[in-house]
């Protein structure tokens, strides 16, 4: 068994396990069994005997028990448990590689691992692993085929591997670009765990935002179109009920959004009357945001206030009374949606007694608020004053020690520690506003984001998480942000560039849409269209019906099969360069009148040409040729060189004339 074959099997097993590892979704303890791959394949390479059937059987049984235990107790998810099982299987198999069949099993399990991984992640790293896997798999298949056919020569394998690998990758790209996407998913339940967030699921434990603020994980990437002046507040969820420790959202009963051809429309349906999706008169500036939202552990989606419509492929969306838009369930994979909003920091609303609720024992806070605004009469002025007061008199800090026992964290912030972060500021302001009789609520979301010059989009991270305040003033919810602005450290160029690569990956590969296909075809066709009759429209029409795609698939499959067959056949005939040279020399000899048939060997030709003066050269060439052709391989160039000088010698009159 050639070493190449062994290495390929080991690499495939490794690639499969790596693909699972990069998802970050598997349990480290459960998958630590992968370490057994190292001694397993070490022994395999050393040619040590494989484990006895009894041990293998015992471990297989243990594996199954662990799998059951895992799927019920550890992961609680059969899908993840299967992922762990495949790793254990790979580890076990590395001790038991006897026959070609065992190698095939390794390939198959690796493929399974890739499929599982594809369900768990769609990161760029997975894309790279996938391409590596594909090349390895093709190589392994070709090598095993050649082994089966009895070709031990590794040089023979190289060309078909290159050709088939390139063909496969080209075809994958073609199918990727050409075939229509199915909204149907292979495995309907999402298994990927979302990024852990806080504050967006109707509940926020006070102080939890502090940890999130230190997390640089990217939450979403936004492409902005249209005006967007001032700081960008990515509005998420609202919170209205505070019990002194936890914020809650008591108004989460949402209404389903109306779905139209343009997506989900917010606002009053009776006013919109179908065709006109803009509420009349009020909207002048519209901003379109294309958002790639990473999987979060919440169902809330984000957008600039005030959202007018959302385009996405979810089957339903809801909005609650406070304007929180949510999906029907948690997003287990990256979703992409387009939000159109008018950039206004106020929205119509109605008062509700719960927006005036304060936790018991917050008299001191209300007292402070009343004292601050006693000279100001109008509500807007009062709110602005409180905002300014908090902004200017308190220190922003993410390192806040927990308040002493029995003290409310807000009182601690306002009167003792006098430092805190957005959560403290926003909560304090809401309680103060409520204390002076202005309905107010906390809004959670993200603020700003890094503008990435590579690709011109915005990166919003966990650390951009923010909470701010909305107060109901004169029948309109108005935004206030009492948190003093913090200087953020800009991300490095390298990081920005790398992120743009990831963005492009998720945008154009993972999130490939039918429009992109049309665009791609359009670009392709306009290139061609200059010369020919290929019109974008006709191609688009063709592409939109399913049959051509199928025909394309069939045609390309047949093409690939035929080309591989032709290639292998040609390979088998062994028409390498030296063979071509040999045949050329033979042709020249035949022209000299020497009897050569297909069954004539080199020695017979030499015997026939003893009288010719080029005979020594011919012998030399034959020796070199047969060494290169039938031996373990030799310098082919030298053979060709000899052939050239031989043919020259045969051609020259002095040489050939002497023999006659």
């Amino acid at each position, binding site marked *: 068994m050639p070493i190449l074959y062994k290495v390929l099997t080991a690499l495939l097993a490794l690639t499969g396990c790596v693909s699972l590892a990069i998802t970050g979704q598997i349990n480290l303890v459960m998958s630590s069994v992968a370490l057994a791959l190292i001694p397993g394949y070490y022994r395999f390479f050393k040619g040590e005997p494989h484990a006895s059937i009894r041990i293998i059987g015992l471990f297989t049984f243990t594996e199954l028990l662990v799998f059951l235990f895992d799927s019920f107790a550890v992961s609680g998810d059969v899908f993840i448990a299967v992922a762990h099982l495949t790793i254990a299987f790979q580890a076990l198999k590395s001790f038991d590689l006897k026959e070609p069949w065992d190698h095939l099993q390794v390939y198959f399990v690796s493929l399974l691992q890739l499929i599982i991984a594809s369900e768990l992640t769609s990161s760029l790293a997975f894309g790279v692993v996938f391409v590596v896997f594909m090349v390895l798999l093709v190589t392994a298949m070709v090598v095993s085929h050649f082994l089966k056919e*009895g*070709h*031990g*020569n590794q040089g023979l394998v190289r060309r078909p591997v290159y050709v088939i690998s390139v063909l496969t990758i080209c075809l994958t790209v073609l199918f990727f670009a050409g075939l229509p996407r199915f909204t149907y998913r292979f495995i309907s339940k999402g298994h990927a765990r979302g990024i852990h967030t806080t504050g967006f699921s109707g509940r926020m434990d006070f102080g939890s935002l502090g940890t999130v603020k230190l997390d640089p994980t990217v939450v979403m990437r936004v492409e902005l179109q249209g005006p967007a002046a001032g700081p960008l507040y990515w509005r998420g969820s609202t919170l209205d009920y505070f019990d002194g420790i936890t914020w809650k959202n008591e108004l989460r009963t949402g209404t389903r959004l109306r779905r139209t051809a343009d997506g989900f429309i917010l606002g009053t349906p009776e006013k919109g009357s179908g065709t006109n999706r803009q509420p009349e008169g009020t909207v002048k500036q519209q901003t379109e945001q294309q958002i790639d939202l990473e999987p979060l552990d919440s169902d809330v989606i984000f957008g600039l206030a005030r959202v007018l419509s959302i385009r996405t492929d979810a089957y339903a969306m809801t909005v609650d009374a406070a304007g929180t838009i949510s999906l029907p369930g948690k997003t287990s994979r990256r979703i992409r949606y387009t939000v159109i909003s008018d950039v206004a920091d106020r929205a119509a609303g109605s008062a509700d007694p719960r927006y005036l609720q304060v936790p018991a024992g917050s008299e001191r806070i209300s007292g402070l608020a009343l004292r601050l605004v006693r000279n100001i009469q109008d509500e807007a002025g009062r709110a602005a004053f409180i905002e300014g007061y908090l902004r200017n008199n308190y220190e922003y800090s993410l390192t806040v020690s927990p308040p002493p026992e029995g003290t409310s964290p807000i009182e601690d912030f306002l009167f003792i520690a006098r430092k805190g972060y957005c959560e403290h500021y926003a909560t304090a302001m809401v309680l103060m506003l409520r204390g002076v009789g202005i309905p107010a609520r906390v809004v959670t979301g993200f603020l700003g984001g890094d503008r990435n010059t590579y690709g011109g989009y915005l990166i919003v991270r966990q650390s951009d998480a923010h909470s701010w305040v909305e107060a109901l003033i004169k029948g309109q919810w108005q935004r206030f942000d009492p948190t003093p602005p913090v200087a953020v450290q800009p991300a490095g160029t390298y990081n920005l560039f790398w992120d743009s690569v990831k963005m492009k990956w998720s945008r154009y590969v993972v999130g490939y849409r039918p429009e992109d296909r049309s665009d791609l075809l359009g670009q392709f066709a306009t290139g061609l269209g200059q010369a020919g009759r290929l019109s974008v429209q006709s191609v688009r029409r063709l592409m939109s019906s399913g049959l051509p795609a199928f025909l394309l698939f069939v045609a390309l499959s047949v093409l690939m099969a035929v080309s591989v067959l032709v290639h292998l056949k040609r390979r088998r005939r*062994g028409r390498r360069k030296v*063979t071509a040279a*040999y*045949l050329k020399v*033979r042709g020249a000899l035949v022209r000299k009148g020497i009897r050569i*048939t*297909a*069954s*004539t*060997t*080199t*020695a*017979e030709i030499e015997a026939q040409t003893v009288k010719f003066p080029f005979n020594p050269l011919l012998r030399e060439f034959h020796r070199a040729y*047969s*060494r290169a*052709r*039938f*031996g*373990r391989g030799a310098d082919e160039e030298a053979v060709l060189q000899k052939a050239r000088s031989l043919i020259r010698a045969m051609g020259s009159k002095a040489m050939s004339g002497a023999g006659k």
Partner: protein
Amino acid sequence: METILQGKADAIKMAIVTLLGRGHLLIEDIPGVGKTTLASALAKSTDCTFRRIQFTSDLLPTDILGVSIFNQETRDFEFRQGPVFSNIVLADEINRTNPKTQSALLEAMSEKKVSVERHTFMLPDPFMVIATQNPMEYHGTFPLPESQLDRFMLHITIGYPALEYERKAILGKTSFVLLDDLSPVVSHQEIVRMQAEVEKVFTDDSVVAYLMKIVTGTRTHPSVRLGASTRGAQFFLSAVRAHAYYEGRDYISPDDVKALAPLVLGHRIILRTRMTVAEAELVVRDIVESLPVPV
């Protein structure tokens, strides 16, 4: 060696090839052209032990293998090794003895060991049998059956020497005198080493395929009743390797295959007309000529 058997370089070469390929040699020719001389010369020029067994019609298997004799002192049977326990065994006129004795030798040839009364004795290494038979004497001979012919790697004929060599042969010293002068040029350890090296000779797939085509060609040829066996094909490849090694190459080429095909396959096939091995060799040549050489 060539001084003794002048003008017969090919026969000597094939004898060496057989030795290197761990095979056995069958020489078939009329009496008096040097069969025995070739065998003894081969043994002499190596430092191998050499025994000659003259096969007669009353030869018994124990005459070859050895016999257990009751030892009065130890009160036990002890085995006296027969002439087969030597590196090179010349089985002269093998077709003169009865089949029972023939098969005793032939078993030893293929197994490289001797089983006598529940005991098994290994034969020395290298071990090679050179058998000769006379085609002319049909009376009182037991022709070797096909299965036993199959155990010989090569079947060669020596033929009359060319006129000038024959003249030298009758004028010069007799071969017995010359044989005494012959000194070993290679030790038997070296032969074992060379045999191991022969097994490492590289075999390109296309040449093996060519060889296989020739072998299967013998099975489908219209005038052949029984084609070459799989063991024949195995011997063929071993012989081809040894031939390539003899020629100083570490790989086999179609030339090796083509040169050896008649010698390896000729005695393995049975023609419909039950003609001689020489005829069969012609058929093999015919088959080889009809097949394209891999290029």
